[in-house]
C-alpha cells in the first residue's frame, strides 16, 4: 500500500518537473528540446504504469481465471 502511494507521488513529481523543464526550454527558444524532454518524461511514467498494469492483470488472472 505504501509503495503504491509513493509511486503516485513519484509520477506527480515527474510531471511537475517535466512541466517546469518544458516551460524553461520554451522560454529559451528551444522548442524541439522541450518536446523531447516531455517525451522522455512521458516514457518514464509509462514504464511505472505498465508495471502496475501487469501486476494488476497477473493478480486478476491468478484470482479469477485459474489457468493464468
Amino acid at each position: 500500500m505504501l509503495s503504491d502511494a509513493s509511486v503516485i507521488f513519484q509520477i506527480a513529481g515527474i510531471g511537475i518537473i517535466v512541466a517546469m523543464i518544458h516551460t524553461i526550454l520554451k522560454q529559451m527558444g528551444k522548442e524541439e528540446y522541450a518536446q523531447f524532454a516531455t517525451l522522455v518524461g512521458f516514457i518514464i511514467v509509462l514504464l511505472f504504469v505498465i508495471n502496475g498494469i501487469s501486476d494488476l492483470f497477473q493478480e486478476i488472472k491468478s484470482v479469477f481465471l485459474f489457468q493464468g
Partner: protein
Amino acid sequence: MEIINIASLGIVASLLVLVLKEQKPSFSFFIILLTGISIFLFVIQHISEVFRLIQYLGEQANINGMYMETILQIIGIAYIAEFAAHITRDAGLSSVAAKIELAGKVLILVLAVPILTAVIETIIGFIPA
C-alpha cells in the same frame, strides 16, 4: 482501518491530479490510472479470500467444479471490463468504453453457453418424449 488508507489515497491522488491537470493532462491521466490500479490490487486480496470461501462451500455442497470455475471467470471478466471501461471513459473515450463493455457482455455470454446447454438439456430430459 484499511478504508481510511484507501480514502486518503483517493483524496491525495485527486489533489495531485488537480495540480497537474493544467500543465500536463497526460501525466494526470497516468496518476488516475495508477490510483485505480493500486486500489484494485488492494481490494483483490480480500476478493480472493471471499472466493476461497465460495469454492470451499461449493466443494462441501458437491457442486460440479466446472460451474464454479465458470462463475468465477464471469465475475473476473466483469471486473476487468468494468475497470477498463471506467479508465477509458475517464480519458474521454466513451465510445471505446461502450465497446469494451459490449465485448465483456459477449464474452460472458460465450462462457455461459455450456451452463445454458446443460439447463436446456435437463429441461428437455424432464419432458416425456
